[in-house]
C-alpha cells in the first residue's frame, strides 16, 4: 500500500487506491499532532519550499506545520518578497530554487497550470497548493478525510456544493476526487456562476438550495470570491445571500445527520449564517486540523521511498 507518484498536481490523476492510501496515511498522522512533542524525525534533512504567489494563511501555515512536524526544513517565499517583483519569470524562479536542491516545492499561483509548468523544470516533487481556478488537490483530500471520518465510508454519499462553481479550484479538485471515490456530486449556484456543460464531469446542477439539500449527506459552502468578482456575475451580494446563504431555516429541510463543510476563509453572513457556523454539524475547524495530517501524509508518501520508485 503505497503510491508511486512524483508530484501532486491535481486530484484528476489520482486513482481510487492512491486516494485511499493518502487518506489512511493521513489518518495515522493525525495522532502526531496530539502529542506533547509534535514532531517525528522522518524527513530530517529534507527541504520543503513554500512558494506562495497568492495570499494564504490556512494553506501556507498548514504546509509549514506539516513539514516541521516531520522534521523537514521549511522555507517560505511569498510573492511580494520573491524576485518576481523584480521581473523574474516563474520558470527562472523554479530553476534557481532547484539549484539549491530542495526535495519538495509547494506552489500557489494565480495562473492555472503553474504547478505543472514548474514540474517540467525541476527534479523536486511539486505539490500544487492552488493554481488559478484549476485545482487545489490538498483541499479536496482534506475534505474527503473529514467526510470519511464522520460518515465511515465515502462510497455512494451525496454531496451538494454551493456557490461560485466557475471560479473555484476547490470544486474542481473535489469533483474529480469525489467521482473517483464513488460519490454523487450536485452543484448549486446562480447560472452565472456555473460553467456551461459542467454536467459532462458527471455532476448534477441545480439552482435551488433548499430543494437540493433535501437528500444530501454533505453540504459544502464555497466562499464568494469578492477579489475575483466582476459586477456581471451577481446583481448584489444581498440577493446572493437571500438565495444561497446556508441559514438554519434552509438547513431544516436537510437530513438530521448532514455534514457542513467550508474550505475557508468564511464570509460570515454571505454564504453561511453565523448560527450555522456554530452548529455542531459544521466541521470547518476539523477540516483545518485534517489539513495538516493530509499534507504530512503527502510529504511522507512523496519522500519516504527511494528515487527509483518514482515514475
Amino acid at each position, binding site marked *: 500500500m503505497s503510491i508511486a507518484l512524483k508530484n501532486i498536481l491535481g486530484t484528476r490523476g489520482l486513482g481510487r487506491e492512491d486516494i485511499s492510501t493518502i487518506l489512511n496515511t493521513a489518518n*495515522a498522522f493525525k495522532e502526531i499532532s496530539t502529542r506533547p512533542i509534535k514532531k517525528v524525525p522522518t524527513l530530517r534533512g529534507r527541504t520543503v519550499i513554500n512558494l506562495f504567489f497568492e495570499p494564504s494563511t490556512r494553506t501556507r501555515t498548514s504546509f509549514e506545520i506539516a513539514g516541521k512536524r516531520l522534521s523537514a526544513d521549511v522555507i517560505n517565499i511569498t510573492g511580494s518578497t520573491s524576485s518576481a517583483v523584480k521581473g523574474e519569470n516563474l520558470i527562472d524562479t523554479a530553476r534557481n530554487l532547484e539549484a539549491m536542491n530542495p526535495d519538495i516545492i509547494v506552489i500557489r499561483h494565480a495562473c492555472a497550470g503553474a504547478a505543472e509548468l514548474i514540474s517540467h523544470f525541476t527534479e523536486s516533487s511539486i505539490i500544487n497548493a492552488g493554481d488559478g481556478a484549476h485545482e487545489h488537490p490538498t483541499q479536496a483530500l482534506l475534505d474527503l478525510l473529514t467526510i470519511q471520518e464522520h460518515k465511515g465510508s465515502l462510497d455512494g454519499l451525496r454531496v451538494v456544493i454551493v456557490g461560485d462553481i466557475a471560479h473555484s479550484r476547490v470544486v474542481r479538485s473535489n469533483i474529480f476526487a469525489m467521482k473517483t471515490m464513488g460519490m454523487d456530486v450536485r452543484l448549486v449556484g446562480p447560472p452565472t456562476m456555473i460553467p456551461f456543460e459542467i454536467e459532462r464531469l458527471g455532476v448534477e446542477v441545480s439552482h435551488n438550495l433548499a430543494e437540493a439539500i433535501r437528500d444530501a449527506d454533505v453540504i459544502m459552502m464555497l466562499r464568494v470570491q469578492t477579489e475575483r468578482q466582476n459586477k456581471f456575475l451577481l446583481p448584489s451580494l444581498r440577493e446572493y445571500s437571500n438565495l444561497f446563504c446556508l441559514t438554519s431555516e434552509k438547513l431544516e429541510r436537510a437530513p438530521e445527520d448532514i455534514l457542513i463543510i467550508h474550505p475557508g476563509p468564511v464570509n460570515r453572513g454571505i454564504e453561511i449564517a453565523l448560527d450555522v457556523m456554530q452548529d455542531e454539524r459544521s466541521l470547518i475547524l476539523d477540516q483545518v486540523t485534517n489539513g495538516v495530517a493530509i499534507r504530512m501524509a503527502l510529504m511522507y508518501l512523496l519522500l519516504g521511498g527511494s528515487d527509483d520508485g518514482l515514475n
Partner: protein
Amino acid sequence: MGFDPEGVFFCPEPEIQLSSVIFNEKDISRAVTRIAHEILEKNKGADKLALVGIRTRGATLAQRLAKKINEIESTTVSLGILDITLYRDDLGTSKQSPEVKKTDISFSLEGKDIVLIDDVLYTGRTIRAAIDALIDFGRPATVQLGVLIDRGHRELPIRPDYIGKNLPTSKSNQVQVHLKEDDGVDEVILINILNKKG
C-alpha cells in the same frame, strides 16, 4: 532454463524453501505466561507497569501479556501500541514509502516502567526506533524489552530482558511469527532458503 550472454544453455538450481515449526500454540502460550510472571517479578507488581507493543505482532503479543498480567494481579495494566515506521533508519531505501499505521499511547509515560514488546529480535534496529519514538512521548522511569524470539545477529548494543526462546539462526534464515489474531494460527516458523536467488 535460461540463456546466458555467451550463448550457453544452463539450468539454474531451483530455489528450495525448507520450513519447520519450532514453536506451536502451546509453546507460545507457555512462553507468554512465563514472561508475564517474569515481568511482574522483576517490577515487583504492576503498579507502575505499562506494556507497549510494536506493530503488528508485537502489539498482539502485548495484548496477550496484558491480559495474563491482569489475571494474575487482578488489575488493569496500561497498554499502548507503537508504529515505528516514521522512526526507521532505512526510509528512502525501499522503492515506496512503507505503510504508516496509528500509534496509540493514551497514558502518560512519566515515571512508568515500560516494557516494549516485539515478536522477533534480530538486528535491534526496530528497537532503537521504538525507544526513540517512546522518548518523544515522555520520560519513563525504565524501558525494558520483551521478545518472543531472539534470533541473534545484533547490529546495535541492545539486549532483551524477557525472552520466549533463544533461536540460533544464520542470516539467510527467515523467522516468521504467526499469531491467531493476525494470521489465524499460533506458530513460529524457521525457513531455510537453499540456492537463494539474487
